[in-house]
């Protein structure tokens, strides 16, 4: 309006504009309030329903013992995801390699691992190999099982990420006379990693929960401790719910970290 009047000065917003802005603020606030209230009511209902016969004394006695398992859970998650990332990068390079052997190895890896249950793989790494004389420490058997498994899924994520880098990027690097390896390391990979960060973050969250599967080989992580505490006095509900809450808090925390990371990586993006 100011431009049409030609005065150059910004005209004060008309009352209707202010009224609309105020209404929008009110609507947004009430939306958030109702959203929060919904969560509160639902959580309260669930807690009340599940804890009607809750043995609080049990939790008071055991919560520290169970919570100590969270440390092992985090260690398992971090080690496994690191292993998975390394395998995924190698796997993706193999899948995209013009070399038929490299591609063959990578695609068989993905196919085998994705086609069999993680639980079976955990047994094989921990006990199956032990029968052949290769006894892995339980913790590392768990890390390898989880890392190898997630590496297969993440291979496809990295492959898609590398392929999502525009072809012109590679051409520009080639035109500068860069050899293939340098192009991959300095031009394609840094951009591919930006693309796959959300998916990797997602897998990290999933991994936190899937570490609970290694209970079957006796690693003393969160769920293992919860079960062994709960079993003695038949307080399974108390122990399981407490473990569930800890898993939930862990995933919330790491989702938040991942969001921050994503935002920071996006800063220099196109």
């Amino acid at each position, binding site marked *: 309006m100011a431009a049409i009047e030609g005065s150059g000065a910004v005209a004060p917003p008309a009352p209707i504009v202010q009224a609309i802005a105020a209404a929008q603020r009110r609507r947004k606030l009430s939306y958030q309030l109702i959203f929060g209230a919904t969560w509160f009511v639902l959580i309260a209902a669930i807690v009340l329903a599940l804890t009607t016969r809750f043995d609080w004394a049990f939790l008071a006695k055991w919560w520290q013992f169970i919570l100590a398992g969270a440390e092992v859970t985090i260690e398992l998650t971090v080690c496994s995801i690191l292993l998975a990332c390394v395998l995924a990068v190698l796997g993706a390079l193999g899948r995209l390699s013009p070399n038929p052997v490299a591609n063959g190895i990578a695609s068989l890896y993905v196919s085998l691992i994705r086609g069999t249950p993680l639980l079976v793989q955990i047994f094989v790494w921990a006990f199956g190999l032990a029968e052949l004389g290769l006894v892995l420490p339980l913790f590392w058997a768990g890390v390898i099982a989880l890392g190898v498994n997630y590496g297969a899924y993440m291979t496809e994520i990295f492959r898609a990420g590398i392929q999502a880098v525009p072809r012109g990027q590679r051409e520009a690097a080639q035109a*500068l006379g860069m050899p293939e390896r340098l192009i991959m390391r300095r031009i394609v990979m840094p951009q591919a990693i930006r693309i796959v960060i959300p998916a990797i973050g997602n897998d990290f969250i999933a991994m936190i929960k899937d570490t609970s599967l290694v209970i079957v080989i006796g690693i003393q992580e969160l769920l293992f401790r919860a079960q062994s505490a709960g079993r003695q006095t038949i307080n399974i509900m108390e122990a399981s719910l407490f473990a569930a809450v800890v898993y939930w808090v862990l995933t919330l925390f790491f989702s938040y970290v991942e969001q921050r990371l994503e935002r920071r990586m996006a800063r220099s993006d196109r």
Partner: protein
Amino acid sequence: MELGEVVVSATGIEKYFGDNHVLRGVSLDVRQHETVMLIGRSGSGKTTMLRCMNFLEEPTVGSVRIGDITVNADPLHTRSRAHREQIRRLRLQAGMVFQDFNLFPHMTVLQNCTIGPIKVKGVPADQAVANAERYLDKVQMLDKRDEYPSRLSGGQKQRVAIARALSMDPQVLMFDEPTSALDPELVGEVLLVMETLAHEGSTMIVVSHEMQFCREAADRVVFMEGGVVVEQGPPEQVLNAPEHDETRQFLRRFLDA
């Protein structure tokens, strides 16, 4: 500027995409300090010809010499290590400017211009930076040296891309429709840089539809049609008094528009 010896020599270039015979035996010599402009309608093979000259497309038949590096087309052995290394050395002789800039988005303007010299040519970092700054100044982008490409306009991106190509100190600059992806009001700043380079004696091969640039800066115009060179000569001759019907028809569309 007085033209020097022949720097770029492409001989008998043919290119098939599948059964599609896109280039049917094109030869092109470019002399030092010369600015050659390739024109022709889309599909005439001019961009493919340019891309064949630094082997971004491997020609089906033919050979390319830039400086003292010669590469013969060898489409049956594109994966051979020796062949690829030879292509890489050929590319080092040429700077390429693309239609959609292709700046590296994860690097600053300055890093875009130094990664090639440092990582490929082994130039010491401080020297590469000084050199890059000189070229960024030339394209008037020095004040943006620490920005990321995402914060630049199209015209600014293309000027950085030119500085990046220059920073490798190539024997010839190749431009593949450098203004086609730009908003009309940004075309001028890029053409101005290119004209300056041409007048300063850079050796340039330009694929473009910018006839104004052609008149101002080109030493020679090469008109292509159907995968062959139909006509070539100084711009005033080709643009004002074309000898061939195809050239006349093409020019009518562009000059009247």
